[in-house]
Every structure is written in C-alpha cells, then in structure tokens.
C-alpha cells in the first residue's frame, strides 16, 4: 500500500509545483465558471415570468370581495390588463366542492414539484370574513389571522424569487384594500404563510445553478482526458515510467496510486468551484448531498479511466493529446454539460447515448435537484461504470513503460 500512497503523493506534490498542471486543475475551471455565469446569466433576467396557480377556495361573493380583488390583481399582473411585460403566467383552476378543492391543490402542488409551476397561491375558505373582521377591529386588537398560503419550491431560484414577488403583491393589495375602506393601519400586515414543497426537478432555474454542475463535470473531463494521458505519456517519453518498471511496482499499482492522487486533486478542484459558485455567484444547487457527491466521484473515475485508456493506446504524448482532442468535443458538447441537448438529430443522439457525460451530468443535476432528463436512473450509474471497467481493463493490459512492447 505504501507504494500506491507514494505514487499518489508524488502526483499531488508535482501538480502543485508545476504551474501548467495547477492552471488546468484550478485556474481554468474557475475562470470558465466565472465567464459562463457572467456572459449567460444576464440573458434571461430581463424577462422573468413566474408560472403561478391561484386556487381560490373562498367562493366569490357579492359586494366586498377581498379574495376576488386579490385574484384580479394577479390576473392584471399576468397580462390580461394593459401590462406590457407580464409578471406571471397565471392559471386559476376552478374549485367548488371540498373534495375537488383538495384534489386541485394537490394537482397544483405536484406541478410545482416537477417544475411546471414556480408558486401556488391558495386563498382559504373564510378569507373574506376574516379580512372584514380585521378591517373593523382596527389597530391594537388581537385578530384572527388572515392567511394566504403561498407554496414554493425551496432551493429553486425562480420559485423562491416568485415568493418574494407574490409577497410584495399581497402587501400592496392589502394596503390598497385597507385604504379603500378607510381603516388602513401600517402595523397590520397581511398574513402570508410560506409553505414549501420538495422539488423533483425540472423547472426553470438560474443559469449558475445549471452551469455549476456542468463546470464541475467539465473540469473533471478536462484534467482526465488531457492531464492524465499527458503526464503519463510525457513520463514515458522522458523515461520516468521505464525507471518505475525496473522496480517491483506493477502497472495496476502505479495506476491505483496515480488515480488516488488524481482523485485528491479533483476534490480540491471541486471544493474551489463549489465555494466560488455558492458563496461568490449565488448558486443554490445542493451539490454536497451524498448522492451528488457519488456522481461527482463517478465522473472523476470515468474521465480518469478514459485518460488511462488514451495513455495505453497512444505512442507519444502528442499522439495522446490528439486522441484526447478527438474525444473531447463530442464528450463535452454532446453530453448536455452547458446547454440542454433537446431534440438532436439521430446521428448525434447515438453519440449522446454512448457518451458517459450524458449520464454523469444527468446524475449530478438530478441528485442536486436541478433537472429531470429522459435517462433511466440505473443507466446514470451503469453506463459510466461500464466505461470505467472497460477502460481500466484495457489500460492495465496495454499500458507499457516503453513505446516498444
């Protein structure tokens, strides 16, 4: 075991002492994250439209109808009035009987969970009466709460943002209503209950939330595909591997040590990206969940194995870089790292389906609560796993310490 640990330590030490390696491991992915976030995140912010459902359990009534006024306010903001830039895409499902009400609320919450809605506003039964009592009682009186439930998907940026906007809308409507009946009291705030659901996924999200897992995987891809064969083949060109080969160190043990060192560097890389992404750029994805970390580990191992495979197939460092370049483009751009692939032509879809990046990116995003794709859960583990096993077996069999075998 000491030989494996020594090889790992050597890999880490030399990486920190050599600027080129350090650049590809740390500086480049951080730089890419910053650039992508700064360039692309601004593109969607000027036209945010929140998908919201308003479930009005309180039946409409003649005369003073606060629930109806609130509904109307949201309808105005959703573009039915003269608003040029709608704030909401509002749906108001009909709710008449008690049985239908609970079913409708559940349906809307399900849509919130799967990302079709950003928020669900529920105006409960008895709202009009409670609101009227509060108006009549005035300031300083202990009142029956007048609550409106606002359900959002905690952790999803657009959903949380929708809650803030809805809260402001409700506060404005409340103030206008109080002033209209002549009983405005600034001390009385509208009651809004903030409720959350657990997302299952695929709703709109901030670009940083989309791109952070992508850059994490891309960082592993770059250092795995280029860094690993680069250093191994350079070592062979320089006679470093030949020097190892005259000792009892075997190929599998060398690869194990190298892989361990590589994993250590990737942990440092991921920590830096997550730190900058969450603290500096406001990412909200939960990449620190065990399941997400498992997929990140799987990504490191997959690209490491690819690096070993390239090193075992190429004759020189330059040859290795050529193979890495050929693999890099389809792996990076046909794996959904930076942009959703959507409907791609059938030929490209074949590449996509054998591309482990497709499954790794999907796994990382799913487990960090970002996106639901069309890949079966099991495939997100099996396809990268198959690449790892196959690549390492070939590398162990073929990797030589010299060009001549």
């Amino acid at each position, binding site marked *: 075991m000491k030989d494996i640990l*020594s090889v790992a330590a050597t890999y880490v030490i030399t990486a920190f002492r050599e600027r080129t390696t350090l650049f590809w491991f740390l500086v480049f992915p951080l730089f890419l994250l910053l650039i992508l976030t700064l360039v692309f995140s601004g593109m969607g912010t000027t036209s945010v439209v929140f998908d919201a459902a308003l479930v009005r359990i309180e039946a409409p009534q003649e005369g003073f109808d606060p629930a109806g006024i609130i509904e109307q306010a949201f309808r105005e903001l959703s573009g039915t009035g003269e608003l040029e830039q709608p704030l909401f895409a509002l749906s108001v499902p009909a709710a008449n009987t008690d049985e239908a009400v609970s079913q409708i609320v559940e349906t809307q919450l399900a849509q919130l969970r799967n990302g079709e809605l950003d928020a669900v506003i529920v105006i409960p039964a008895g709202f009009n009466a409670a609101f009227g009592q509060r108006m009549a009682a005035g300031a300083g009186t202990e009142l029956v709460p007048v609550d409106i439930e606002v359900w959002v998907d905690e952790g999803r940026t657009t959903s949380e943002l929708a809650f803030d906007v809805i809260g402001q809308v409700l506060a404005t409507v409340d103030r206008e209503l109080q002033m209209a009946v002549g009983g405005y009291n600034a001390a009385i705030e509208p009651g809004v209950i903030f409720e959350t659901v657990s997302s299952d996924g695929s709703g709109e999200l901030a670009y940083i939330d989309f791109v952070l897992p992508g850059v994490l995987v891309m960082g592993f891809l770059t250092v795995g595909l280029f860094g690993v064969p680069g250093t191994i083949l350079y070592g062979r060109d*320089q006679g470093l591997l030949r020097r190892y080969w005259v000792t009892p160190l075997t190929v599998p043990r060398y690869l194990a040590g190298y892989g361990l060192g590589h994993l250590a560097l990737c942990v440092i890389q991921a920590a830096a990206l997550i730190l900058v992404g969450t603290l500096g750029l406001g990412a909200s994805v939960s990449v620190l969940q065990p399941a997400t970390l498992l997929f990140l580990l799987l990504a490191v191992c997959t690209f490491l194995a690819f690096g070993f495979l390239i090193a075992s197939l190429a004759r020189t460092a330059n040859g290795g870089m050529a193979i890495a370049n050929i693999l890099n483009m389809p792996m990076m751009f046909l794996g959904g790292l930076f942009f959703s692939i959507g409907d791609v032509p059938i030929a490209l879809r074949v590449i996509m389906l054998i591309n482990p990046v497709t499954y790794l990116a999907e796994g990382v995003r799913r487990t960090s609560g970002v996106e639901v794709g069309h890949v079966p859960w099991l495939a997100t583990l099996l396809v990268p796993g198959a690449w790892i096993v196959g690549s390492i077996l070939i590398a162990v069999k073929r990797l030589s310490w010299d060009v001549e075998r």
Partner: protein
Amino acid sequence: MEQIALRVTSLRKRYGDVIAVDDISFEVPIGKVFTLLGPNGAGKTTTLEMLEGIRVPDGGEIELLGRKLKRVDRKAKQRMGVLLQEGHFEPYLRVREVIHLFSSFFDRSVAAEDILARVALQEKEKASVRSLSGGQRQRLALGVALVNDPDLIFLDEPTTGLDPQARRNIWDIMADLKRRERTLILTTHYMEEAEALSDDVRIMDHGRVIGSGSPAELASGLGQETILEFSAGGAGTSGDGASAALGSCCHKIRIDGETVTAHTMDLMHAMERLLEWSKREQVKLSNVVVRQPNLEDVFLSLTGRTLRE
C-alpha cells in the same frame, strides 16, 4: 564452490529482421563485477534490459539469485538495483522525495540518510531534480538503484556523458559496492572503466559475444605483443611513411591522423627502425608511448574497429 548470482543461457532477442542479442551465455559469481563491453549497437543494453525485466527475451533462460526465470518477475526485482542508461526522475520532486518514492516500492529499504551519504548528496537533499547537474543526477540515479540494498546491481553505461570528475565519483561508489561484495553487472564502452572495475568481461559486437575473460586474460590473449604509439608531426603523409618504415617488424599498424599505433612482437627492432626513419626523413616524433595491450586493443584485434567507431 562459488555461488552464482546470475546465469544466462542462450539468451536471444530480435527486433524485426535485426538480431539484437544472438545466443549469448555467461554466469556471474556473487560479489563479482561483470562487464559487457562493446560499441553502440552491440547488444549490451538489450541484454541488460532483458535481465532487468524491461524486455522479454525471445529465447533462452535466466537464473537470477537461484531462481530460473523466463522473464524477470516482481520477486526478483525486490533484490535487484538498476541504473538505467537513460532514466529520468520527476523534475519537480526533491532529491530526498525521489529516494522516499523509490524506497516505497520495495519490501526492504535503506534509510534515506544512508543512501544520500553513500552517493554524496546530503547537501542536495532538498534540491529539486531539475536543479541538479548531470553528475549529481547520475549519483541520484545510482542512489535510487541502491535504496533496497540490492544483491544484484545493473549499471547500464553509468558514466556516459559525464565529465572526468563526475566519472571518477561514480567509479568510487562502484568500487565501494565491490568492496561490500555486491554483484555488479556493468555495460560500458569505456575500456578504462572495464579495466578498473571488472573481474570478468564479455566483449560484444553485433549481438554476439566475441571475447571473454578477465581484462588481464583478454589482453594476454594478444600474446607477447607490445603496443608502440607515437605522433609523427609535420607532413600529413608522415604516418604512412612511418608505417612503411616499421614494415615487417610490426604485424598490425593503425594510423589515425598523425597518431600511429603499432603492434609488435619485437619492440627493440621496431624502435630502431622507427628512429632510423625519423632521422633519415627528419620527421619529429612526439608522444611516444610503449605499453601493454588493453581492452581497446583487444577489441580492435577482434573486430578491426575501435570501441567508439
């Protein structure tokens, strides 16, 4: 009975149409220095690489420290030390880190301090590999070959490309290993290196062994002949004139520019004829040396070429 550290029987290696090593056999007793001597391309390094486990022989048998092997395995490597002809180290590692790294590959290892002292690199222990001079790197390589206190040490052209002082340092370390009764397998194309250190020599050319024995035995194989070397200055054709003057009293004459090397069985007669010719033709003789044959002469005698051709 003498114990054998290494026995090689009918070892063969071919690269395509080229026969690199052609059916060579030898044995090396424990504690001896064995040298493969020959020019570049003679097959020395290929032979050594098969013994080190880098290359797989096409045929033949290797008996290494009592174990018969078709190819050198991990267990055998535990007791071997190897200094490669061209073996680099991670340039960003420090000297001590290199020693630690290679020590970790073996079941038994010598303390890093001892290795550094043995190759006189204590003061460079914190220096990075890339900052070392050629001689220091070679001493580090030799230190790495000794990290497991090996019984059998392979040294492939250990002093090639080094300046005289660095070469002398390496020789001192090798002499120390010999005193410690370690078995050394050496390749070189420096005949003085082979003469200074070797107990037994095989002269190789074109993949075959063409001469064997101790340096003294090989030299004595040339009989009672004496070597007369001199420079005949002045005209460019002086060498040819001297060659003609020495004539029948020298059975082999080699001219390299102004330098003449003549092999003779009758030194007195050869000297008389040389001095007569010099006086008659008024040619100035210089750098006149009379010596016994060495391994260079043996190689020349066997192949008609010098080691460096």
